[in-house]
């Protein structure tokens, strides 16, 4: 076991892929000489050269389109879109092309492409640089959407993403790059579509992904001092969604809260709530609750931004109001 950061875990996964497979190459804005906006590809340019570590113009649609073309031609491109906010510029390439080509060609063409991106708010980056759109992408059949919450998951999931023959969006939360965790030295992978129970409990299930897993764990810790035993389920992938793990946990606890960093209205949390009530209605001991971001463009001010984000306190309040716990 080695303790590393989530940033190092991603770097490690990328290096492995570059080392093992000549068809793997990286494309993105400032990933080469500048080493990446979040320094994930530090040293890559010197080590692997400009052919495999390609700096691109500021043209997200062009970058993703080029990667799709390369994938159609037999390569395994890994694209870095600097943040998920900029993926809106590549929406057509991702939704109308990457997600569809395999189906529309009757399987003759596959798109083994990973789009890495940085997601989330909480760093005072203002309304246009603090968003999370993974729920939108997760509604598109043909895409896979992955959001690790710790170094172990990041490496194990990235390995599976790179070896997957479908387009995958791999979102790294900006505030999680420096968190550390133990990673086995021996090879392991984590299958896509398998959630992880990050804490076991008996009274309430909190379902979360990405940074909200840590917020949920903090709430769970505080609630345990009140005698409330909380189970925290980390979805890890929004598509494919591990419904069985969610339902199994809710059947055990009878109470569920879905926590999501982005806006509550139209969020992916609503999808999970629907699934829970469809699949485990008779096991519910209260309404299925949501704690989400407040429906406003994220404020720049640090205090105001903190006020719109889900916090452990808001989760604890929701559980108190909703379940009387």
């Amino acid at each position, binding site marked *: 076991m080695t303790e590393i950061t989530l940033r190092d875990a991603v770097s490690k996964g990328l290096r492995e892929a570059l080392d093992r497979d000549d068809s793997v190459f990286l494309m993105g804005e400032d990933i080469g000489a500048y080493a990446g906006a979040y320094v994930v590809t530090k040293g890559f340019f010197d080590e692997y050269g400009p052919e495999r570590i390609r700096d691109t113009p500021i043209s997200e649609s062009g970058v993703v389109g080029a990667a799709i073309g390369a994938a159609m031609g037999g390569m395994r491109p890994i694209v870095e879109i600097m943040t998920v906010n900029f993926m809106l510029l590549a929406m057509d390439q991702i939704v109308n092309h990457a997600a569809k080509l395999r189906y529309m060609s009757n399987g003759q063409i596959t798109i083994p492409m990973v789009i890495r991106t940085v997601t989330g708010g909480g760093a005072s980056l203002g309304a246009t640089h603090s968003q999370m759109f993974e729920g939108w992408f997760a509604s598109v059949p043909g895409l896979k959407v992955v959001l690790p919450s710790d170094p172990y998951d990041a490496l194990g999931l990235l390995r599976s993403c790179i070896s997957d023959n479908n387009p995958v969006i791999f979102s790294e939360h900006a505030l999680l790059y420096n968190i550390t965790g133990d990673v086995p030295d021996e090879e392991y992978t984590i299958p896509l579509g398998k959630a992880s129970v990050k804490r076991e409990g008996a009274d309430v299930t909190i379902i979360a992904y990405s940074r909200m897993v840590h917020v949920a764990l903090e709430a769970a810790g505080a609630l345990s001092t009140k005698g409330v035993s909380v189970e925290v389920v980390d979805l890890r992938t929004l598509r494919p969604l591990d419904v069985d793990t969610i339902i199994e946990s809710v059947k055990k606890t*009878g109470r569920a809260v879905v926590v999501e960093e982005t806006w509550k209205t139209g969020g992916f949390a609503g999808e999970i709530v629907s699934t829970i009530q469809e699949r485990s*209605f*008779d*096991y*519910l*001991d*209260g309404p299925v609750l949501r704690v989400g971001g407040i429906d406003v463009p994220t404020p720049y001010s640090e205090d105001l931004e903190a006020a719109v984000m889900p916090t452990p306190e808001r989760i604890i309040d929701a559980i108190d*109001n*909703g*379940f*009387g716990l």
Partner: protein
Amino acid sequence: MGYDMREGTLVRWLKAEGTEVDIGDPVAEIETDKAVVEFESVAAGVLLRRLVSEGTTVPVGHPLAIVGSLDEEIPDIEDAPSPQENEFAIEEPPRTTSKAEEPVEELPSTIADDSETPAPQTSVRASPVARKLALEENIDLNQVSGTGPGNRITRGDVMAYKDSHPPAPPAPTAGTLPSPETLSNEQAPSTPPKFGEKVLLSRMRQQIARVTVKSKQETPHFYVSSEIDMTAAMSLRSQINKDLEGEGVRVTVNDLILKACIGALKKYPKFNAYFDEDGIRMNEEINIGIAIAEEEGLILPAVMNSGPMSLKELARASKDLADRAQSGTLHPQEYTGGTFSTSNLGMFNVSSFAAIIHPPQSAVLAVGRVSKKPIVDNDEIKIAETLTATISVDHRVADGAEGAQFLVEVKRLLEHPSFLLI
């Protein structure tokens, strides 16, 4: 149709398809909760198509017929009401229970029903898992107190109830226990209490149940009573009736009470109003309701626009109302248009009682019998004919003092009955 009516049965069509109808023409007879009434066309034109066959019960709001012009194309509407449309319909009480149809079941069906499954627990606030658990454990959720938000019954509450209420031990059996093989269906249930036959609710009974429960749940009643000296009114009445002989109309004690109420309602119009969530709706006309006991139950038709009526006209109108109630030929608006009601149990020899307000009305006056009693008048004991009147008032509309003023006005008019004539 009726204020609280949810469905009705189309008894008979009065117009054939293809005939011309005008607005207000009776086109069908409909059995409401209370009587068979004529249903009037709300449109003018040709009755193109009947959508409901005779004898069919449909929810209020369901289209009955299409009226239009002859060259009009009839839209494609399904004849029979679909269950989705029928969302407000009352579930018919089952005519035969499934238990009774099971050949091996020897018990009267009512006993089996009561002892096997708890009653539907839809009005109780409980979580889904608490409901499921209660059903499995045969626990009546009405007996369980909820500790969740808004007193919701949770799984924990049902478990706690179960722990504190262990199931009753099996009835002690004398002698040797029969082996399971010999325990036949006929012998097995030896202890259930002996209930009598269950009388199914008539439509009128259902309607009365619904309206009175609604009234008692939603309308905060308060009551004011007063004894009224009827001596002068009774003597005036016998004189009037002597004078009216041969005119085919008699003034009853109840007519005097109605007339006095109308006078008081003119002075205190609040008691003639309907309570709405956003205000008190004053009714311009006084449609005074009279409770009439029928074989099947109670009806409360009203004498429409009774405000301007003389005592003689009122007496004629109330007699006509009672006659038509008997023959089942009241108009729907007479059932539903009442603005204030009276209930008189004097003929049953009761001294006094309190009545339930008929929503959306605000008050009802209940009167007992007129009887001779010693009263104190100017420090002398006299024999007087008295009755006790009790008004039930919706507290959302008026307060106790106002109720008292209204009743005192009724009393004043009856004790000085010449006011009833001028």
